[in-house]
């Protein structure tokens, strides 16, 4: 009888500690967002992962990074399968984020290098150009108001297809909500296109959280880290 009780206690203790260990893990969903998070290299090498490790590891939780496709990522967060998700623009009011953005995405146009337009406030240079854009993205006023022929591309892969069509000369340019993803020095696309930016029209990119408890757990540490060194400044000092 005594031995049975002991076993029960051991099982209970084992169960308690396993639960405790599980609850000590923060599941971090990440989407491919080069050069900040780059799925084409080891995740630990991505600057955003390094930065978030420095923010979160002092909290004494183990961190589990889970690569997610962009289309499914927010569902994984909403259904609680990941505790946090980054980096994402806020597209739904129901998604809660840490209180400050990580960085800002600046939209722009990507061109074949020989057709490059460096200053996009010169909107008269868009006259009669064939400019593709992802149908689900909101265009900046400067482009909408121009005399370019704007051609929407449907589908989840619109951005990649648009860049390819630009490379092949089917578009004069392609509107990208965040061209840094294709125009940075660690990507093969860098050799094929050149992008310029609509400065002054930026979108905040956040760390989203699954619930209030996670928010409370992380936000103070995150704000403290930002006050010491913002992610943007940290990133600016990497050799990327």
């Amino acid at each position, binding site marked *: 009888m005594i031995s049975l009780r002991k076993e029960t206690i051991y099982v209970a203790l084992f169960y308690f500690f396993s639960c405790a260990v599980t609850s000590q893990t923060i599941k971090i969903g990440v989407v491919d967002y080069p050069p900040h998070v780059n799925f084409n290299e080891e995740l630990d090498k991505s600057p955003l992962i390094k930065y978030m490790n420095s923010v979160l590891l002092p909290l004494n939780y183990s961190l589990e990074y889970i690569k997610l496709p962009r289309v499914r990522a927010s569902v994984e967060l909403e259904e609680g399968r990941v505790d946090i998700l980054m980096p994402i623009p806020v597209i739904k009011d129901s998604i809660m984020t840490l209180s400050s953005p990580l960085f800002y995405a600046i939209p722009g146009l990507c061109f074949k290098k020989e057709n490059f337009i*460096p*200053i996009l*406030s010169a909107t*008269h240079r868009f006259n009669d150009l064939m400019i593709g854009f992802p149908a689900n993205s909101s265009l900046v006023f400067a482009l909408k108001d121009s005399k370019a022929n704007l051609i929407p591309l449907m589908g989840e892969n619109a951005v990649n297809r648009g860049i390819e069509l630009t490379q092949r000369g089917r578009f004069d340019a392609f509107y990208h909500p965040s061209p840094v993803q294709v125009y940075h020095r660690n990507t093969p696309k860098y050799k094929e296109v050149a992008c310029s930016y609509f*400065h002054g029209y930026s979108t905040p990119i956040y760390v989203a959280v699954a619930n209030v408890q996670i928010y409370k757990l992380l936000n103070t540490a995150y704000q403290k880290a930002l006050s010491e060194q913002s992610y*943007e400044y940290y990133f*600016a000092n990497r050799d990327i």
Partner: protein
Amino acid sequence: MLAKNKINSFLRQFFIIVCILFTCLQSSANASADIMKPLISDITKMYMSSMVYIFINQPLINQKGGDKGDLFGERFIQNIKQTYFAKYDEKFPLEDHLAKRALLEAMVEVMNDNKALIYDDEIGFKGIIPATFAFQLSAKLATKGVGLKIKFTRTEKNIRNRLNKPDNWEKSIMLKIIKKPQIYYDDNAQLNGKPAIRQFTPLPMAPYCLACHGSPKHNPLNKNRKKSDWTNIDITGFEMENWTMNDFGGGVSISIEKSVFQ
């Protein structure tokens, strides 16, 4: 009689308290002014030094290949500090205020945003000129939420970037100083609906401004071309405005929320 004495005593105490409060408020206001005016002046000069550095380094920015490390990170800031010293013959200001630190960080971040382009050996003219750098810096600062706004602007007519259009305060100040350009300081202004200090520092037209804003004879693209082949489109793709050295060159408008000083 006793009641009268009490009232007199109360009034005397009340008067003393009011005097003390007034003196405190007055000295606090003076202290704020002592801090605010130098700060806004330092920020203006830091900003203008960075624009000068970008102008001086057009060959480095636009060259294909070579070491461009001077344009990034701490080396970039050191170079701006040297430019400041050369331009104003005084030491670079202490980085003793959040607004100054935010400005320096924004400079590094803006250059990093342009890194891929600056290192792109297949692109000649990169479009990173003082005016566009200044605008990018302004846009970057606007996202930082530090209560600091910087703008390089001009009278509304012929302004090239519509996002740089002057606001009502800037319009009214330019109207006042356009005939006789001088620094205008206002410690009773508003920014985002909050009390702010603002300063407008006119920029004299310089020969390099005319390369884009002057007439076709100033346009570097027309160098070694027959006059009949000259273009009035400048290197950035805009039509030149035919300004001369006597025209108003616009200015740097800086606003800082007063809450930043508390």
